[in-house]
């Protein structure tokens, strides 16, 4: 909203509309922002806020929509009136972009070097040889290992973090004045995210490049950016210095976002999510756009457009009130929970589970099968009645495979799942009706786990009939009760999944799982596809249900904040093995395994230029499963041959704290 005189980028009063006539969606309305040379500007918003639309409009790429008013200037030159030919000289040359999901952003059919060289050949007129040599140099700048070899490889041969480094190398190839980063670390593992964020900070320092950083993660933005703008429903609602917006937010929406952030240190307090849902942008309502969801809204808010108010040094907010006092009940203490003690017999246990994807499928003649690592390697865990066990790990750690084995969707190669000491059949179809009823699952992707042809009432009512939980005449009543338990009203009964938002769909999934009246619900990343304000309310719902119904959860997630919020005990998985288990507070305050330490260090905490996450400098060979420690090649506490050749011993701490490591526990 405010702007420096010498700005690299100046977006003025930008409005973007998708569609025509009555169905036109006014996705972005009157957005103004400017970025000074060398400045990093963060644009925050949840899905549907219009942040990516703004980003792509600066690249002249608004598919299916049009800029209805406003201007975008790069170095005082208007971009919106440029011809396609002129755009070609700007794109990749003066403004470059880094995308979410680097795997898809790279062409699978081209060598990595060729994709970087293409930019250089195009904009710098380099010969092919020079461009490839420069690509090697760029790969070195983004700290890719073995750049000379890597340029000849293909996207599918490298990891997600490396792919994102390649995309960044491509973006900095022509020394653009402005770098647009659209959720560059979303979808990456947390340690990879930490490395990429460090690389971005480093490149900024060395190249003095201006950055427009788009993200939904407030802490990540605060860590990278100088200034932050908050978009809500296509409108800028607050803008100011990054730390001020994160710590002293002035707009109720920003305050709500901050309230939905999972605490990563200190006391665990109940999150206060934002009520309601995004307005329909086909008919933009009068008055403040956030008023229908705002706890402070008055009649005036609903009729008058709020003006921008200066609320601090370079800090502005689009709210009528210059001072808002958070209501006293903003934080409710979490009801004290005592997890069952060690002496209680486990309700569900997993003993020595092995699973490998390699043996699947019909053997074909002449086709050699690739040796593949085991997805689960001797996994042993126990869940006591009413307990929430969090399972954390990065992608490929085997956590989802474990969930599927417990639920009976995959048959393990070895080992067993036991319910109250009785061994369950490996596949759900072989298990008794009663065993199936007692263990239910909620899947990660709410969109694909609901049958699009069934109404919410059918979906939630189905397990009632299947398991005969209630007599037939009471089913409807019970279905409504189940929906109420997950905070959905009766009117949802006749709706179809496509009419629901992501958070509502996940609530339906939870209600369906509850319908069977289970003792244990396996939650496989139930909130990872949701916006943070929605995540907060879904997590609260799960917590309330657990208290009401005394259920146990196996909660699988990659997000340490979520584990800390919901779990009594936590198991950390890496490379198919459980490397550490213990009480949540214990594992977070005194982690025993070097991998857990690394994970905890990698959480973005929103402080600028935070301490570097250490990287293993020398490349060690990938450990062989079942011989040494699975983490040996990335471990900062590496001890040499012992780690490579000997299986790490189990070290026992207090209260069932268990760590598989050659290093002795500090507390023991």
């Amino acid at each position, binding site marked *: 909203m405010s702007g420096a005189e010498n700005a690299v980028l100046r977006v003025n009063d930008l409005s973007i509309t998708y569609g025509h006539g009555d169905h036109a969606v006014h996705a972005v309305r009157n957005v103004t922002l400017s970025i000074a040379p060398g400045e990093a500007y963060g644009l925050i918003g949840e899905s549907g806020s219009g942040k990516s639309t703004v980003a792509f409009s600066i690249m002249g790429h608004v598919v299916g929509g049009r800029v209805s008013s406003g201007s975008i200037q790069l170095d005082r030159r208007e971009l919106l009136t440029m011809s396609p030919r002129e*755009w070609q*000289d*700007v794109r990749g040359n003066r403004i470059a972009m880094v995308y979410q999901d680097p795997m898809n952003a790279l062409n699978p059919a081209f060598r990595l070097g060729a994709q970087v060289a293409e930019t250089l050949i195009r904009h710098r007129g380099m010969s092919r040889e020079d461009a490839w040599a420069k690509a090697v140099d760029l790969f070195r700048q983004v700290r890719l290992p073995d750049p000379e070899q890597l340029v000849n490889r293909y996207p599918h041969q490298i990891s997600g973090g490396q792919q994102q480094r390649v995309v960044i190398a491509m973006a900095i190839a022509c020394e653009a004045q402005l770098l647009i980063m659209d959720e560059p670390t979303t979808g990456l593992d947390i340690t990879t995210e930490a490395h990429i964020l460090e690389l971005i900070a480093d490149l900024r320092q060395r190249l003095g490049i201006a950055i427009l950083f788009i993200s939904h993660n407030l802490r990540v933005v605060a860590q990278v950016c100088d200034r932050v703008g908050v978009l809500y429903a296509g409108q800028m609602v607050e803008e100011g210095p990054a730390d001020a917006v994160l710590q002293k937010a002035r707009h109720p929406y920003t305050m709500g976002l901050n309230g939905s952030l999972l605490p990563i240190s200190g006391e665990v307090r109940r999150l206060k999510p934002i009520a309601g849902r995004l307005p329909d942008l086909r008919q933009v309502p009068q008055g403040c756009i956030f008023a229908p969801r705002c706890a402070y809204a008055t009649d005036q808010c609903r009729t008058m457009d709020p003006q921008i108010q200066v609320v601090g040094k370079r800090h502005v907010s689009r709210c009528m009130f210059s001072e808002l006092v958070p209501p006293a009940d903003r934080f409710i203490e979490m009801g004290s929970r005592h997890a069952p003690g060690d002496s209680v017999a486990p309700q569900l246990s997993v003993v020595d589970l092995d699973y490998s994807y390699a043996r699947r499928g019909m053997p074909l003649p*002449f086709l050699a099968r690739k040796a593949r690592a085991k997805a689960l390697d001797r996994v042993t865990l126990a869940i006591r009645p009413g307990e929430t066990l969090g399972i954390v790990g990065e992608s490929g750690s085997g956590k989802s495979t474990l969930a599927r084995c417990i639920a009976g969707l995959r048959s393990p190669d070895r080992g067993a799942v036991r319910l109250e000491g009785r061994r369950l059949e490996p596949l759900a179809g072989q298990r008794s009706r009663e065993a199936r009823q007692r263990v239910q699952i909620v899947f990660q992707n709410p969109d694909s786990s609901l049958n699009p042809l069934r109404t919410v009432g059918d979906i939630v009512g189905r397990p009632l009939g299947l398991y005969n939980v209630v007599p037939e005449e009471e089913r409807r009543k019970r279905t409504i009760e189940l929906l109420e338990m997950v905070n959905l009203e009766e009117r949802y009964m006749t709706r179809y999944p496509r009419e629901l938002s992501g958070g509502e769909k996940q609530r339906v999934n939870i209600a369906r799982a509850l319908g069977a009246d289970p003792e244990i619900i396996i939650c496989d990343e139930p909130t990872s596809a949701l916006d943070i304000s929605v995540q907060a309310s879904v997590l609260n719902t799960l917590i309330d249900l657990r208290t009401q119904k005394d259920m146990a959860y196996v909660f699988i997630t990659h997000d340490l904040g979520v584990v800390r919020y919901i779990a009594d005990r936590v198991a950390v998985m890496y490379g198919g093995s459980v490397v550490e288990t213990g009480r949540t507070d214990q594992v977070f305050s005194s982690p025993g395994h070097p991998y857990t330490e690394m994970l905890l260090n990698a959480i973005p905490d929103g402080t600028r230029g935070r301490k570097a996450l250490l990287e293993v400098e020398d490349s060690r060979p990938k450990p062989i499963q079942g011989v040494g420690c699975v983490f040996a090649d990335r471990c900062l506490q590496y001890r040499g041959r012992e780690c490579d050749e000997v299986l790490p011993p189990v070290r026992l701490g207090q209260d069932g704290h268990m760590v598989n490591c050659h290093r002795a526990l500090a507390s023991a």
Partner: protein
Amino acid sequence: MSLWTLILQRILLMIATLFCVAVLTFLIVNVLPGDVAVAILGDQSTPDQVEALRQSMGLDQPILLRFGDWFGGVMRGDFGTSLTFGRPVGPMIWGRLLNSATLGVICLLVMIPVSILLGAVAAVTQGSVLDRAITAITTFLFGMPEYVLALGAMLIFAIWLQWLPGAAMVSPGENLFTQLDVIVLPVLVISLGGATYIIQMTRASMIDALGTAYVRTALLKGVPRWQVILKHALPNAMLPTLVEIGLSFGALLGGLVIIETIFNFAGVGQLMVMSVQSRDVPVLQACVLVIAAAYSVGSLLADIASMLLNPRLRT
């Protein structure tokens, strides 16, 4: 896995497939009602005459033994003797194979570039009048049986306009290139029929490719649109189309039964129909093997081309 080991594996699998095809055709032909001896001698024959002929042709032998005899011959390059013509099957099929292959290759050369071009143009101009015209015409042709197309083309070009001959009375093994005008109509009809698949497939996968993030990346690198389409989108979009093209190999060689009959073209398809009618088992088996081999070679070539286009398949 390197390209060569994969090709080797595929060739071995292909031989196994052809063996299965040989066994299956032999079995099916032998359980079919009707008897070659009856077919040769006609309905008026006496049972004694039939029995005598059966014995002289070795049809009274157990099925396993007959299969063994036949298969041993095939391994030596001897496809046996035609029951109705009394001539060796090998040379008989060879001349027709040449004819069919020539026709097929010409069709491919016409059909593939034109349909890829049309499919790509339709995808790039998606929603335009041009795209709708291409889609409408291909849908129309897709629903049109080949014999209607063939008869229609014959009516227009051979009878009304009298530009081209209506039948292609070439004898097996004759050099087709000395009389190209006779194959214009068959090529036209076959290509129109085959192109519909390839156009639709190219259009669909090209639309997918144009919507991918890597195409967007290329555009936002400043690469001109036509270059993005040709260099980034088209090669990736060709992958599903290649499978379709590979399968059309076999169809061109053996599936042209109707076309070859209508145009009186001496190809493998025509021979196969004749051999079915006369219960000429050795000829039928040879025809089926040749056609199965064409299908296999076609899909092998398609797989090799896919591997060249898609590094994920070869590394």
